[in-house]
């Protein structure tokens, strides 16, 4: 166990330079790069005094090294600054208001992509080099090339406009949440925790189209990976041995799938970044009140500190998720050690 502990400690320490580098990149993009963010966002026609005032509030008129020090120290203290608009709330509080919606969407989108990816990947792997395999391979390429907003809109058109069976936007019917206090912000879970099953059902109902959209587009990558792993695992000796012992084909597949699934886990870390990118587009398409919608809205209103804070938050979030995935992988696979 000492080696596992060393692995976890070293891997955690390694996250520090990565986060630090990302923070520096964000700083360079938002402050040092040519072009003046505030002017670019307000537009050239804004009165100069107004632009000056915004810059001063965001601390943009100090020398770079002072700005950088303020920025890093602020983040270490957990202080992301205050919003420049609407009640000037702390940026972190605003982010935490919108985060649960994104997490709920990504969890369900992720589940859809894993279910589709595992099924199609297993079928393609078992039927490798047949027509079925070729068509599933084509599926994985096309699914990946689908533009999320377009797929979402086609779903909205079919299920919302023509069939009128599913909601085309939002997280929940507004009337339901009157006088109801969510606990975690994940509506599906909160509905169960507070005994309001109508809320859970309604939230799930709203989740169907967005999570299908996100899940289908992301499933292609899993299809390919599971297929490749299945082909690899199915040719190994223990599978041949299992077949020789007369195990049913279903049980053989269960063994194979368990082994084919381990490498899929490593990919989940990288997939997470893609999941977030997809979530931004899905949220915009389905007016989902999450981080993506929030970030775009604040870019429109030139809420500079909030924009910076949100991007910094994304950077830290992604690094932490990657860390967790790596540690989980080390727990499952004892070969992963330093």
């Amino acid at each position: 166990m000492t080696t596992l502990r060393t692995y976890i400690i070293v891997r955690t320490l390694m996250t520090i330079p990565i986060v630090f580098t990302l923070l520096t990149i964000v700083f360079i993009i938002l402050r040092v790069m040519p072009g003046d963010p505030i002017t670019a966002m307000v537009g050239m026609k804004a009165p100069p005094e107004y632009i000056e005032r915004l810059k001063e509030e965001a601390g943009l008129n100090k020398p770079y090294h002072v700005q950088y020090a303020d920025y890093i120290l602020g983040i270490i203290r957990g202080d992301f600054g205050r919003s420049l608009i609407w009640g000037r709330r702390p940026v972190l509080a605003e982010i935490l208001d919108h985060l649960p919606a994104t997490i709920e969407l990504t969890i369900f989108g992720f589940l859809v992509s894993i279910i589709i990816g595992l099924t199609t990947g297993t079928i393609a792997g078992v039927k490798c080099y047949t027509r079925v395999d070729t068509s599933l391979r084509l599926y994985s390429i096309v699914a990946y090339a689908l533009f999320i907003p377009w797929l979402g809109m086609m779903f909205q058109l079919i299920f919302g406009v023509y069939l009128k069976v599913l909601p085309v936007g939002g997280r929940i019917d507004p009337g339901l949440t009157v006088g109801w206090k969510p606990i975690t912000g994940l509506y599906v879970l909160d509905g169960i925790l507070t005994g309001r099953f109508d809320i859970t059902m309604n939230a799930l109902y709203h989740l169907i189209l967005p999570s299908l959209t996100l899940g289908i587009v992301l499933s292609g990558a899993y299809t390919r990976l599971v297929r490749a792993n299945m082909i690899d695992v199915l040719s190994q000796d223990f599978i041949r041995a299992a077949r020789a012992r007369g195990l049913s084909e279903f049980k053989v597949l269960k063994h194979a799938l368990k082994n084919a699934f381990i490498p899929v886990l490593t990919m989940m870390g990288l997939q997470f970044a893609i999941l977030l990118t997809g979530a931004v587009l899905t949220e915009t398409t389905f007016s989902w009140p999450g981080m993506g919608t929030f970030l775009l809205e604040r870019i429109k209103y030139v809420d500079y500190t909030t924009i910076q804070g949100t991007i910094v938050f994304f950077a830290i979030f992604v690094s932490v998720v990657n860390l967790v995935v790596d540690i989980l992988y080390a727990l499952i696979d004892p070969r992963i050690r330093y």
Partner: protein
Amino acid sequence: MDIGFEIIRRTIIPQIRESGLMLKLGLAIVTTIIVLSIAAPLLTPYSPITKAGVALQPPSLRHIMGTNNLGYDVFSRILYGGRTVLTVVISATLLSMCVGVPLGLISGYYGRIVDRIFSIVMDSMYAFPSLILALAIAAVLGPSMVNAIIAIAVVYIPTYFRMVRGQTLSIKSLLYVEAAKAIGAKDSRIIIRHILPNLLPTVIVVFTMNIADAILTEAGLSFLGFSVPPPTPDWGADLRAGHEYLLAGYWWLVAFPGLMIMLLATGFALIGEGLNDLLSLKEAEKR
């Protein structure tokens, strides 16, 4: 029965056939779209940025893809939009290749502290959600075609860097590179004459796959309003403009631009996949 022959018949031949098919299909899709966008003035009588008829007309013989909310011909906007998309995406990917490949070569060949610094910067960027990074850059620079190109190019530099660095590391230790070093060849000569040519096939595969990726990022940027400003025709931007009218049932405003994005991205992905397969089969043959 000869087992070797059986393996070739059952696995290798279908693979070669499949990759050849994918390559051809991809090339057909991409060539068609490129020709259609170049020949746009010959194929449509309407300008993409002037009123061509009554607004929101469904597809008909006069307007085969209908008209949009401003009365512009949707088919014209699709064709001219292809020009915008291809220009932005190909310039951006070429730009990131021109930055990423040299950095990867230097990092992989010289190693040490330079390598450490480049690697950590590139790995961090690689792990970050690409669209959000591009969005931040485009938001700071302001919406324009050149800025969209820069934003997309920056996002994909790590893709080339990581691949080239890894390959350089393995090629560097090959015998013929050692031999070149032993007879006193300069570093620059070794990198340009001995390492770079070996990288080219992989760079080309990554380049085509990267274009597919960049098409989706460009579409994402313009869908969110951070690429070319209106009324320039662009598929992503048209999709966003059409979204407002979707719930009223005007499906042709969004169906066609999105279909084009998917087709073009699929085309490049197929070329990349096909090339990749052929390349790895060739590698396997060598052994």
